[in-house]
């Protein structure tokens, strides 16, 4: 019975996908707004990476919503996971390979993460991708030595300040008589590191927030007790 239901569901899904595929010709953009943004984004926002100008310039409030969703999810996970008993068993330290490569990779991941965040308005990447890499960098030592203590207060501070910074930049635009989260400052020359006004600052806030949040979440998960 259960298999039959799954089969029916899969068949229905395939049918709908085929209908959608048959109705639209691939390669032709059905929307007009995409073309308009492609033409006007570099002049309007000063960001060479058009994806960034959409994510932070045209749809900044969506990004704020995404950050809020991520915050709520990590908060809920932290609540569900609970606190570990002090006498609970802990995993032993990992082998030499992981320990040494964790030490080697930590600075590398840190540089790559910040590079991706700070070049979000120039090259592919940005706050979310770089933030995940930062979180991985701070989780690696924990993977190598499970007993390592994590500075959760510091992580929360970074996360809170970054989130407040994002909203503050948005409110600053509001005080100057513009729309909420509208890009401020000088646009600079297209393609240089200091360009696109406040977009790099917004992405830095997003990256720090995502990184601190996910690092805290992973540390919580790894630190939770194991049912024996």
């Amino acid at each position: 019975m259960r298999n039959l239901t799954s089969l029916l569901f899969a068949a229905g899904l395939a049918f709908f996908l085929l209908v959608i595929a048959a109705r639209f010709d691939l390669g032709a953009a059905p929307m007009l707004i995409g073309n308009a943004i492609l033409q006007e984004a570099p002049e309007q926002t000063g960001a060479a990476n058009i994806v960034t100008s959409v994510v932070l310039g045209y749809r900044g409030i969506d990004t704020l919503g995404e950050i809020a969703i991520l915050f709520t999810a990590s908060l809920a996970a932290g609540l569900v996971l609970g606190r570990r008993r002090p006498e609970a068993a802990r995993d032993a330290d990992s082998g030499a390979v992981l320990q040494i490569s964790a030490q080697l990779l930590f600075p590398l991941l840190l540089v790559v993460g910040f590079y991706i965040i700070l070049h979000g308005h120039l090259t592919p990447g940005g706050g979310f991708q770089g933030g995940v890499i930062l979180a991985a960098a701070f989780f690696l030592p924990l993977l190598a030595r499970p007993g390592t203590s994590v500075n959760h207060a510091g992580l929360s501070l970074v996360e809170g300040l970054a989130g407040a910074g994002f909203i503050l930049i948005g409110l600053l635009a509001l005080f100057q008589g513009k729309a909420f989260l509208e890009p401020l400052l000088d646009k600079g020359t297209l393609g240089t590191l200091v360009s696109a006004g406040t977009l790099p600052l917004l992405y830095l806030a997003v990256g720090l927030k995502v990184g601190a949040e996910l690092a805290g979440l992973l540390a919580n998960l790894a630190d939770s007790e194991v049912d024996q």
Partner: protein
Amino acid sequence: MIWLLGILIVMMLVAAIAVLVLDNHIAAVAAASIVSLTLSVLFVLLRAPDVAMTEAAVGAGLSSLILALSLRRLGLWRIENTVKETEDA
């Protein structure tokens, strides 16, 4: 190009079916990670490097890490050399 796409899609399908049929939970997580990794290569070929980067970082890296840690939390996956001294003492 079309051959590469075909190989990638077959790899994705094989890995996705492996997630369903594998008995070992951690192997299933690894297979799910392979699906995401192949998908990110597909995104690069489709000229969406931003999405590819997100898929590789979140789909292949972070979510499989969270799945593996959740398996560990539920006791479905055990690291062999767990310290037992605290229990024996």
